[in-house]
């Protein structure tokens, strides 16, 4: 079974063997979960409704960033939210049950894939409206500041979201108020079907997206988002700054989304499996896709850990088998879980 977020002390060394094994384990758990979601579309058509979005390709960015997290720090991802609670230790059974809209789901079937929430594990929720949760995360940092809780906030959002007013407004306020928050701009190179070079002013000028930090006079950095250790190092600096009360930083992690934006959008009951990646389906650029697939962060990190003898083939396989079993158990649990009773829909409208 998985190990949840280790205690502060155990995680101080960013490059210790335990830490690296923990990082790999979490990356594999995320990947297995996302593959299982994708498979479920084929093996059990219609069971997952609406629009699901996967984090395969983002594992190094997610786990690398969260490897610097202390036990009570708050995590606020975007709607592409499966990976983060996996690292926080949310039971995969409950997550998968939510993706399948079941009664035992994390949000009792009310939220689905886009709206996971596990406040008991410092994950208050997500927004499906792009960019808006950047403001919510900034508000969580305000709580931490006002309550002197010592927490910081990890705010994850996409390259596309960095074009929203909420992004600019929030970063400005966070800088003025010196809020304890790390903004992680996950540049997976696509905003749905649009390549980021078609819509980002920095990209058009040939600059990294972290250049936006300059507008708020806060530190900005760009890092290889396929390398969890590199991500961890850069995010650690930003986290230290936040913990020291010096305010926000912006970190661009650059990687590549390995699946299509989401499952096919169509009117039911037409099938909604995952289509080909946009690089191929929209831009006819298979070379780009293959190039980045070859840089698959999970496989690359595995090879590196084997080479550095942090893992052996056998220990890597054990981690992978355990993750696979954990995810398979989650799928079976979710499929067996009942759907909510219709009248339950009337609950939770007001507190």
């Amino acid at each position, binding site marked *: 079974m998985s190990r949840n977020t280790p205690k502060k002390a155990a995680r101080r060394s960013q490059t210790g063997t335990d830490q690296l094994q923990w990082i790999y384990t979490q990356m594999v758990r995320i990947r297995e979960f996302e593959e299982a979601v994708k498979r479920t579309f084929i093996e059990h058509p219609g069971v*997952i*409704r*609406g*629009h699901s979005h996967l984090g395969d390709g983002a594992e190094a960015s997610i786990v690398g960033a969260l490897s610097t997290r202390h036990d009570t720090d708050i995590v606020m991802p975007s709607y592409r939210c499966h990976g983060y609670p996996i690292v926080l230790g949310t039971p995969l059974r409950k997550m998968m049950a939510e993706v399948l*809209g*079941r009664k035992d*789901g994390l*949000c009792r*079937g*009310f*939220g*689905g894939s*886009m*709206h996971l929430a596990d406040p008991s594990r410092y994950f208050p929720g997500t*927004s*499906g*409206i*792009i*960019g*808006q949760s950047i403001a919510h995360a900034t508000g969580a940092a305000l709580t931490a500041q006002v309550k002197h809780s010592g927490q910081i906030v990890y705010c994850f959002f996409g390259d*596309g*979201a960095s*074009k*929203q*007013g*909420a992004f600019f407004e929030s970063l400005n306020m966070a800088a003025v108020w010196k809020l304890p928050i790390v903004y992680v701009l996950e540049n997976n190179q696509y*905003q*749905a*079907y*649009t*390549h980021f070079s*078609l*819509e*980002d002013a920095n990209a058009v000028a040939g600059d990294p997206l972290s250049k936006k930090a300059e507008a708020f006079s806060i530190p900005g950095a760009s890092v290889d988002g396929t390398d969890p250790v590199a991500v961890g190092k850069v995010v650690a600096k930003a986290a230290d700054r936040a913990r020291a009360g010096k305010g926000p930083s912006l970190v661009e992690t650059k990687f590549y989304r390995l699946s299509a934006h989401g499952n096919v959008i*169509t*009117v*039911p009951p*037409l099938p909604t499996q995952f289509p080909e990646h946009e690089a191929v389906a*929209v*831009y*006819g650029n298979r070379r780009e896709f293959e190039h980045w697939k070859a840089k698959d962060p999970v496989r690359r990190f595995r090879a590196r850990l084997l080479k550095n003898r942090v893992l052996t083939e056998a220990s890597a396989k054990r981690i992978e088998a355990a993750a696979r079993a954990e995810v398979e158990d989650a799928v079976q649990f979710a499929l067996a879980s009942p*759907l*909510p*009773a*219709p*009248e*339950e*829909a*009337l609950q939770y*409208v007001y507190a």
Partner: protein
Amino acid sequence: MAREMMYGDAIAAAIIEEMQRDPNIIFYGQNMAMTERDPMLRKFGKERVRIAPISETAEIGIGIGAAMTGLRPIVELWMSEFMLVAFDQVINEAPRLRYMSGGQVSVPVVLKAGYGFCAGWAGQHSNCIYHTMMGIPGLKVVVPSTPADAKGLMAAAIRDDNPVVYLHPYMLTLDKGEVPDGEYVVPIGVADIKRAGTDVTIVAVGWMVKKALAAAERLAAENISAEVVDPRTLAPLDVTTIVNSVKKTGRVVLVDQAPRQSSAAAVIAGEIAEHAVGDLHALKMVTALDTSIPYSEPLENFVVPNEDKIVEAVKSVLTQEVIAV
């Protein structure tokens, strides 16, 4: 001549035909015209067809500014809720500028968005928010329910000198219907009787028109003759057509995909109450329940109106005793 067309294609046909007619029309939005192969881009060029980032405030605000200064922009917003990010622009800018300028300025912008995608998209992508725009003088709101109306109302929206929110029910995107070829304009502010009947009036909006027609068909098998009225435009509302139908039947069911509280149905009910009071025997609203749209299927089905609920409501208004006063 008419041709069978899908609802989504009928909208596109209107946009293309209007853009061919008027070089001042531009069209932009997120995730469109991404490559040189895009058919709209090839037809009209990069100047008039553009891709926009996820920046609704600027997308809509730029549309308004361009409209004030001589262009006729169509902004593709995909889902009506994305407009909420820029609600100032939609509600407090576009419809107010003409009035505040004493009639000097006009804002011919079309805000195109799908709505009410009840397909498991959960709390932020499947709602009906047209009620928030219906009470804004200066703003027109159209909700076509057939491919023909989709084409005709898009043409009308583009030609209109006012800001028009063009809302298309996502659930109808693939539905087919006869669509007139060439120039076809459905006037804004005119309701349509989609099925004539004598026993009961069903007023339905958008996707609900399809449900109401299916319910009417079922009721016909039980010798109940239902008239289905489609307002087509929610602002300004064609009260006359609705009231005339109610005066004829005396009984009305109002079907609206939006939650009951301040729904289009509730607004229409008010008009009927004032204008058909002497002829009205019974009225019932079939709306969504007052919740956000939940993810899981049984929850979503419970909340949203359907054929069964319409049939049941019709039977209930037909059996309701007329209370003599």
